[in-house]
């Protein structure tokens, strides 16, 4: 971290601990661009762990910031709904014309049926079958990286690898794969947060193109024998074959964003974390077997989805606060993953933790990330292939972070590989 960046962090810390509690609004997107939100979470965990804010963007919402409180909300899906009709899983309330039904934003029993339809493709037996292909593609991408020149790790590695993976899962034409990246970005765009985003009607028009493309694939696959790609599974699965177009679109968005943004940002965040902690990088180089615990530690450290939203179904008490029916509740995984009362040395990046998998990044309860094992597999292969290839990867400039309190990610990380 350079001198300017540490001044920014120091000032943010002082501000976070000096300001009146009622002014703290951790969903402020500026905090995510500057990466200063952690100071506000530290204050809230200490002084007001279940905290009400009024955001100029999202309106009133509750922030749950401690690990065990987050676990309590996440595992109580009867009291805290994910259903789109009540508000869904992000703080923005989508207007009628932009609501996309998808199983992450459903309560049981519909959620369970649709989720089960796609579970097998990301389940351990299928992942074992896919591993050689993922490795081959990872090697090809790494072998093609430029030497002795500065390039953007996000674009050339993180986006390229996750998009290739997604194209493989969908059996999507490889030459068009960057459309998946674009649609993923479009799906999470929010004009209220980012002035550069598309207008809502333009956004829906782009997602309409996605639906058109995928409807073509659906029609091809429905007329062919069942295959092991996701589109074929949806088209032939009893719980999904009668989905409406809107629901198909919603579930595509879920799978594209879920398989794209998250792993992408852990691929970048992992490199940055190791760069920022040279002692850990040295430890990894000395003992590559630590990749097993490095991977979950990267996922904890990055927390690529900073929160998930729930909506209280009835009045409920949490952490001494009265949450009313209909209130928005943000479970800040990013904050729970830094909670010292649940995770030893939570503020430190340590690649050989005793229980590295006990983090909140995948969520807990019935909405736990369905692709978590695939994400870990991709990250494991990436680091297994990086270590023998590149003795040094220099991070040569500051990262550029995405302006979003939901997707905690990067648009740029300039690096240089000598050689």
């Amino acid at each position, binding site marked *: 971290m350079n001198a300017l960046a540490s001044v920014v962090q120091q000032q943010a810390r002082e501000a976070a601990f000096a300001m009146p509690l009622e002014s703290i609004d951790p969903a402020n997107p500026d905090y995510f661009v500057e990466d200063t939100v952690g100071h506000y979470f530290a204050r809230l965990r200490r002084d007001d762990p279940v905290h009400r804010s009024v955001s100029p963007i999202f309106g009133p919402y509750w922030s749950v910031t401690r690990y065990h409180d987050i*676990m309590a909300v*996440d*595992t109580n899906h009867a009291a805290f709904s994910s259903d789109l009709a009540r508000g869904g899983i992000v703080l923005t309330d989508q207007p009628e014309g932009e609501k996309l039904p998808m199983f992450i934003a459903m309560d*049981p029993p519909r959620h*369970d049926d649709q*989720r*089960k339809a796609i*579970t*097998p493709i*990301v*389940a*351990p*037996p299928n*992942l*074992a079958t896919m591993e050689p292909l993922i490795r081959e593609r990872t090697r090809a991408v790494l072998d093609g990286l430029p030497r002795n020149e500065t390039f953007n790790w996000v674009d050339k590695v993180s986006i390229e690898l996750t998009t290739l993976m997604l194209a493989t899962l969908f059996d999507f034409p490889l030459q068009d794969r960057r459309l998946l990246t674009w649609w993923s970005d479009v799906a999470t765009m929010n004009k209220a947060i980012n002035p550069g985003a598309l207008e809502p009607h333009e956004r829906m028009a782009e997602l309409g193109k996605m639906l058109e493309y995928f409807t073509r694939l659906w029609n091809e696959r429905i007329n062919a024998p069942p295959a092991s790609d996701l589109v074929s599974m949806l088209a032939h699965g009893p719980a999904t074959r009668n989905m409406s177009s809107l629901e198909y679109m919603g579930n595509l968005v879920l799978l594209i964003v879920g398989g794209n943004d998250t792993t992408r940002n852990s691929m970048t965040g992992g490199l940055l974390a190791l760069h920022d902690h040279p002692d850990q990088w040295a430890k990894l180089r000395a003992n590559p077997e630590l990749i097993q615990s490095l991977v979950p530690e990267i996922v904890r450290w990055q927390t690529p989805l900073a929160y998930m939203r729930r909506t209280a179904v009835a009045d409920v008490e949490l952490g001494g606060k009265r949450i009313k029916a209909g209130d928005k509740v943000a479970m800040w995984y990013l904050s729970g993953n830094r909670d010292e009362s649940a995770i030893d040395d939570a503020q430190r990046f340590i690649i050989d933790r005793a*229980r590295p*998998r*006990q983090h909140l990044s*995948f969520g*807990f*309860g*019935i909405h*736990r990330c*369905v692709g*978590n*094992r695939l994400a870990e597999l991709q990250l494991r292969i990436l680091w297994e292939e990086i270590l023998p290839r590149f003795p040094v990867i220099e991070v040569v400039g500051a990262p550029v972070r995405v302006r979003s309190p939901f997707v905690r990610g990067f648009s740029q990380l300039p690096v240089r590989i000598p050689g």
Partner: protein
Amino acid sequence: MRGLVHCGMVLRCPLTIETMPQVTFITFSGERHVVDAPAGISLMRAATDHGVPGIDGDCGGNCACATCHLFVEAPWAGRLSPRSDHEEDMLGLTVDPRPTSRLGCQIRLTDALDGIVVSLPEGQH
């Protein structure tokens, strides 16, 4: 042994004698891991404390991740308390749920389970 059990931690009463029921875990590839674990802890903890491969317990015993999925056959299955609704919900997240499926974190070891044999799925999801 009698004890208070909360959040996967055991508070041991100093006046009782601790017993160590034996558990056999059979991995998907057929390896047998035999461990002696204190009564009162869960099957999940018995596995993770002894480094038995194939059981993760990511949520620390909150019945919230389904990464301690295992199979319990007769006669042992009949000696366990039935699955709660919550355990049923979470088993729905596993790849290969069967009538014999349980979550290890929801089964407390007791003397009556001394000698229990359980088998593990191909992988935790």
